[in-house]
Every structure is written in C-alpha cells, then in structure tokens.
C-alpha cells in the first residue's frame, strides 16, 4: 500500500516486524501493541526508530508513558466504517501532546483524508494507488470547517466573529 506523508507518496522507511519474527538489531521498525507492551522498557531503548501499530479497541492511555520514545503510532481502520481511531488520534494529539508521526492504516480511502487530517493524522497507508495520487487535490476540497480540532483550523463560527470585528474596525 502506498504511503502518503507530507502530502506526497513516500517510501516507507519503517519495516513491519511480525510478533514471532526476530527483531533486527537496528533500523526503523513497526511492531504490534502487544509485542511493544510486553517489553516496552527494553524496546524503547533499542537503537533505531520504533513505531507501534495500535488497535482501535484498546485504550490509548496505555501508550501514554511511552509517547516521547515513539517515532510512529499507527492507528488501525479495520474497515472504513469503523471510526474509533479518529477518537484515538485526537486524544493522542490534543490531550497527550503526541508530536511523532500518526499514521492511518487499514481501509484508508480518499474520502476520509480530510477527516483524518483534521483528527491529527499526518501519514496515510492508502489502500488504492489512485487515491494516494489524488491526495493533494482531495485534501483541498474543503475550505470551511465547523468544528475546532487540534489541527488549528479556524471554525466558521470564529471566522465570522473575526470578519465582523474587522468590518466594525474599518468603519
């Protein structure tokens, strides 16, 4: 699946490692939540960048003590209909201040890009090549947003207030 990062299709430098496979001595790896939590202390001291694939039915609070040692948190969309990872993303970004890569993985389609970006994702393992290619155009589709989220975009409510103030200042 193509990886979109920084708005462009990018080579994935992280190697997924299965739970029963041996870990490479160094290099960037992506492992499961279960494997990570099994020996979090040692794994987070390992040479090479570390990423964790977090299931969408597990409380992200368990991950919080380790956030500053993780280079990637990958949240799963087992189906594009299942929106639990949107909540996890916002909690990680907005409540726990996670600043590393937040990757959407699983059934990721172009029609979710705007929602995902707004929830705090900045990397996308996209299911279809054509969707990945359409990323830049798709995310520009909306210019008005009604809800405040951690992405810092100003809401329509506050934009109106600003417009009103600048109008009254100009009078």
């Amino acid at each position: 699946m193509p990886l979109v990062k920084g708005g462009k299709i990018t080579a994935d430098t992280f190697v997924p490692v299965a739970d029963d496979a041996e870990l490479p001595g160094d290099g960037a790896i992506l492992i499961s939540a279960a494997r990570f939590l099994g020996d979090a202390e040692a794994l987070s001291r390992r040479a090479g960048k570390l990423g964790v694939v977090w299931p969408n039915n597990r409380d992200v609070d368990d991950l919080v003590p380790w956030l500053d040692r993780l280079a990637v948190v990958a949240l799963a969309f087992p189906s594009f209909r299942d929106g639990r990872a949107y909540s996890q993303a916002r909690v990680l970004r907005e409540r726990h201040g996670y600043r590393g890569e937040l990757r959407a993985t699983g059934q990721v389609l172009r029609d979710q890009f705007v929602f995902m970006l707004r929830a705090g994702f900045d990397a996308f393992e996209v299911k279809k090549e054509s969707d990945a290619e359409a990323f830049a155009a798709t995310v520009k589709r909306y210019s008005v947003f009604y809800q405040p989220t951690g992405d810092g975009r100003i809401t329509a409510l506050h934009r109106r207030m600003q417009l009103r103030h600048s109008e009254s200042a100009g009078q």
Partner: protein
Amino acid sequence: MYAYDELDRTLINERVSEFRDQVKRRLSGELTEDEFKMLRLQNGVYLQLHAYMFRVAIPYGTLSSVQLRRLAHVARKYDRGYGHFTTRQNIQFNWIKLAELPDALADLAEVGIHAMQTSGNNTRNVTSDQWAGVAPGEIEDPRIWSELLRQYTTLHPEFSFLPRKFKFAITASAHDRAAIKVHDIGLRLHKNAEGETGFEVLVGGGLGRTPFIGKTIKPFVHGHDLLSYVEAILRVYNQYGRRDNIYKARIKILVHELGIEKFAKEVEDEWLQMRDSALAIDDAVIEDIRSRFSYPAYEKLPHMPEELKKAAHDPLFERWRKNSVFTHKVQGYSIVTLSLKPVGGPPGDATADQMDAIADLADQYSFGEIRVSHEQNLALPHVAKRDLPALWKALDKIGVATPNINLVSDVIACPGLDYCSLANARSIPIAQELTRRFANHDTANLIGPLHINISGCINACGHHHVGHIGILGVEKNGEEFYQITIGGRADENAEVGTLIGPAVPYGEVADVVEDIVEAYLALRARPDELFIDTVKRLGVEPFRERVYATR
C-alpha cells in the same frame, strides 16, 4: 429565519462537488458499491425497492418560501412531481436517478438546502419544535442552539463513522413537540434555580427494535458547555458503542448495558478533561448566531379583528380554526397548521404544485416562512388573525385545510412496503383506510385528540411505539400482519405503548382500531378524558377484551 452566509454556502457547494466526484467514481466502477454505500448514505441517498430515494434535510424544521419552491422544482424536474415529509423534519423523493443527483443537490445548494447526514452512521439532521420562536412561554428560541448543533455536527471529523446513526432533538417549551425523549440525545432548555439558562441532557432514547425512553444524564449543562458535553458523550459512544451487532449498536443499548450512572461517569470523566477546550462557547458566539436569525416585523394588531368575528358565522371556517389554528406568542397572530393528511391520502405527501402554492401563501401571509413538524404536517408560523379567513379559503383550495390536526385521522405513517426495501408490510393503505373511516369530523371531534402511528417494520420510522394507538406491520408466512399497541406517547410524558394481543391480518386493522376507539368512548370517565388518559387509568385489559372477544 436563519440566513446562511458565504461560509455556509461555500461548505455546501464543496460538499456537492465532492459528491459529484463520488458519483462519477461509482459510475465508472472506481468505487465499489460497498465503498460508495457509506458515502451516498452520508448524502441522504438510499437504494430502495424501485429506485434511489433521496432524503433532504430541513434543519429544525424551518423553511423559507424560496427553499420550499426549490423543493417543488426538484420534485418536478428530477422526480414524479411530489415529495414526502418524514417524521424527522426531512423531505424524501422516491424516484430519482443516481446520475442526476449531483445536479439536484446543486440546485438545492443555491438556496441553502443540503442532504448532508440525513442518513448513515453519523449525527443526523438536528430536529426541534416546529413552533420554535413563536410558541407562547418558551424559554428562548431553541433554533439558535439547534443551529449551533447543526454546524457542530456537520462533517465532524471524529464522528462521521459512528457505530450507528445518532439523532438530536431540542425543545425550549414545557410541552414537548420535538419528542426529545425518544432521541439519542434530547435537550430541554430550561432555567435553573439561579435563573441561568441551560440544558437538561437526556440520552439513550430511541425506538426501533428495542425502544427506550431517554434518561437524564445531567439535569443542567450551561450553554457555554453544550458542545464540549455533547462531544464527551459522542466520544464515549464512539469508543465503547457496540460494533459487533448492528441491532445493538445504538447508544441506547450502551446506556442500558452500562447503566445510566456508569455511563454518566464515563462521560463526566471525559468532559472534565476537555470542557475548557476550544469547544467552550462564549456569549459573543451565541449572540452572533442569534443575530443571524431574523424575526418578522410584527404589527400591533387587535386580539379579535373584525374579519375573524365575521368569519365565525361560517361553521366550516370555525371548525377549521378550532382545529388547526394555535396561539402565537404575539397578540393578533396565530400559528396555522396545514394538514398533509387529506381523506384517502398518503400521510406527509405534498405535490410540487401544492408546495409552490404554500410558498406563495407563506409570502402573502406568514413573512415567507414555513415549518415542518415531525407529525408530517406543515405550519405557517406568523399569520395575522385578520388574514385567517382568506388563508383558510386558499388552503382549502389546494387540499391542505382538512380540520383533523391531532385527531384520529392525523395519522403518522412511514412509506412502508410500497417504497421501502426494509418494510415487511404496507403502511400507506392502512393510513388511507383509517382517514376514510374517521372522515366524519363530528365523530373525530367527539373522540378528541388521538394519535395513530403506523410503521411497516420494526425499524419504527412511523414511531408506532409512541402512538396513542401504534400499528406495527410484521410478516407471517408471507402475509402482512399488524401488532397493535396502545398507551404510547412522544411528548414530555413519553411512554412506549403496550401490546394488546396477537397480531391481526391486514384486512382487520381498521376494524380493530374502530373497536379500540369505541371501547374508549364507552370507558372514558368524562367526555374530556383523553384516550391516552383512559388507557393510563384502566390499562390495556378492557381494550384487549373488546378487540379479541369476537376474534
């Protein structure tokens, strides 16, 4: 009326353009039907028995005459010349072509109408009291808060893929016309002991397969905290709502399984961590929304104008006035309900010509404003009393002056097996038959207020659980049968009705309803004891006896 500005219009247009692209990708095969399904549902497009069905939002039930005319245009140009007003302040078109849907949406967008989130597993169209802003004694116009919620819930980046659909309703009156107790979140605007305005928040109400009356999760949430509190509820639901079983995925099941205290604690914990976030609303924001609602420049008019005194000599006018005209908060004005339940007609249907004519009458007599009720009727909210006689004649001419509001033939019904792919039984012909049986106004008036609700399947779009008499279509060995409940209600004292006995075949439903009504007439303590109160006092047994003694 609320005026959409450039920002709202831009968003709606961006949505139309996105949907146009999605339809194109579906038609080219780039999107599978499974992928497209969720996207079309989020734009109000269902695949029904015969064709695509298109559901358009009428947020909090308020329409301008310009918007109603545009709905008529869509009915005429893209459909078969009529539309169906539903129990959730939406209008549905039944015969629309997929390839033409983006054009229909673009036509609607020009007048600030959209179909965003009228279906799908997201927050749905926010509904409210159809008398909002004109009801005597309401705390304040609940549409200001409804509009705040409309904006907040539209294309929410966290809650567009919930476990199941999610419905809000809001009222600011003591008498609940918005059925808030049978919604996922019900909001009742009221004043606390300190005189501050805020919301009682109810959660977990709903009908369908497992009906529940909503429970109070918090007696008072200040307006400043409304969005953060709602977000906390939705986040808890998004995380913990069941996704393994579609029938157990609504928030009512989560609330029921956890218990309201435990659920409330989860929400409180979540809320306390975010109540001071960007979701906190200050008074300036509320005032800004309030300032974009315009209200009519009412005249100072006499309570009883000459025109009304004169018309009172006409018994037909008086009959209509007593049934369909309601008290307005401003002296000299009335709220007029237009019945979309003519004798022998499908409840809630209006033709394009009727819609155009009603739009013209709204311009002439109601400051260009129309309301849509969950009872599937329309209303003109600001009619000067002196205009009532002329308005009545005009409404009668187009067939929307049947004086049966709240009476036994003001039937609520879903489209049933005639249109809906989910239905097990017909609803419309039963409703039509009941309007014929109770066509005599004197009889209906003698019976008094009595709500009949019909659903063609367990999904309960006709809200049968909360009908004073509820009729639910079921299928047995390939035949249509109907379960009958009594004692349900959807107001501030909402209750789920009780089944009176075994289901009856299609051909007997109207007879059974007549039996129930006759039993009530014989059993009521006084002529002014309502059907619903007689059932409350006596229980179902005497009704069961009357219906099944001879069957």
